[in-house]
């Protein structure tokens, strides 16, 4: 066991917070969404770096990105929907994406893999950040905001995807900086929303405070009336 684990196990810290939130604010979370035991059995916790696999899946990955943006490589499953929340990477697609990047930028495959994994992690982390912000608003107001927000913007919110891409591109991580040029060209061929990341950039920097504040205000505070359902009102009456 590593020394860090003896100190504090960071790997499960957010999971524990989420468990507590689910227990304390039961009415804010969904119960009926289930990840199959079949899928749960297939989960690995370590990436597999395989160049040959990447070569086989490079074309499929590129067409996937054109059609679904970076959600073709990994998906963020929100903790409002299931206890099996987190970032799900698809091994073949991640290797395929790394293969594309390594060929185009002439990088060793292992390096490209580390850079691509970090970039996707940054994109998907923004979805977590948005959900986390929604949760803070929910716990203060004691009413459902995140689930109705996702209900309103099916299948995805274009602004959220654009900011997620902008966050990824402007990351200070040296790994992301190394492949930024290629990430940018893949973002530009992605579907609407994913390709609109320049809206959130100014001189290649994210408009962090202004634009993010606008996004959260617009989606979690100002639009509360828009999302409110009978269930929310009932919850508000009982508590308030």
């Amino acid at each position, binding site marked *: 066991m590593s020394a860090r684990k003896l100190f504090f196990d*960071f*790997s499960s*810290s*957010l*999971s524990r917070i989420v468990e507590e939130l689910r227990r304390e604010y039961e009415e804010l979370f*969904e119960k*009926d*969404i*289930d*990840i*199959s035991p*079949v*899928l749960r059995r*297939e*989960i*690995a*916790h*370590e*990436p*597999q770096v395989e160049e040959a696999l990447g070569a086989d899946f490079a074309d499929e990955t590129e067409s996937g990105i054109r*059609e*679904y943006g970076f*959600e*073709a490589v990994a*998906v*963020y*499953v*929100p903790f409002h*929907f*299931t206890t099996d*929340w*987190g*970032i*799900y*990477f*698809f*091994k*073949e*697609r*991640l290797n395929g994406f790394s293969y594309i990047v390594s060929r185009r930028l002439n990088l060793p495959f292992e390096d490209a893999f580390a850079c691509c994994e970090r970039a996707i*992690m*940054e994109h*998907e*982390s*923004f979805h*977590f*950040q948005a959900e986390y912000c929604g949760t803070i608003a929910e716990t203060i107001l004691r009413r459902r905001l995140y*689930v109705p927000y*996702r*209900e309103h913007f*099916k*299948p*995805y919110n274009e602004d959220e995807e654009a900011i997620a891409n902008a*966050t990824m591109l402007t*990351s*200070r*991580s040296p790994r992301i900086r190394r492949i930024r040029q290629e990430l940018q060209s893949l973002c530009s061929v992605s579907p609407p929303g994913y390709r609109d990341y320049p809206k959130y950039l100014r001189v290649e920097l994210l408009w962090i405070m202004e634009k993010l504040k606008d996004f959260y205000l617009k989606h979690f505070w100002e639009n509360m009336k828009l999302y409110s359902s009978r269930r929310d009102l009932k919850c508000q009456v009982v508590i308030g």
Partner: protein
Amino acid sequence: MSSSYWLIPTHYLSLIKAPESIDALYFIYANYRVQDILKKLLKLYKDDIENVEEGVGREPYHIRLRTGQRIPVPYHGTKGGYVLAKIVNELADALGKDKKEVRELVRRDP
């Protein structure tokens, strides 16, 4: 988030072992429910599906095909998750179509 992104649970899935996992997770990510998927299927396969009828008890819905075949949907309309991929697979089997193609079509439908 940049310094703490690694506190989020990360999972790695093989598409070769479970090909429907990407569609199942995408359906969860997009917050689709049984009723959304049934609407999509009805829209996409209106030549093959006669109607989606509501039932009672343990079978809240069933899909009636033009051939007369009946596919039971034993899930509540607000249920989401992996069962959505299962419903699509069952319909693809009944219509004799490729499961992966049908799932792709449902995924692509806005």
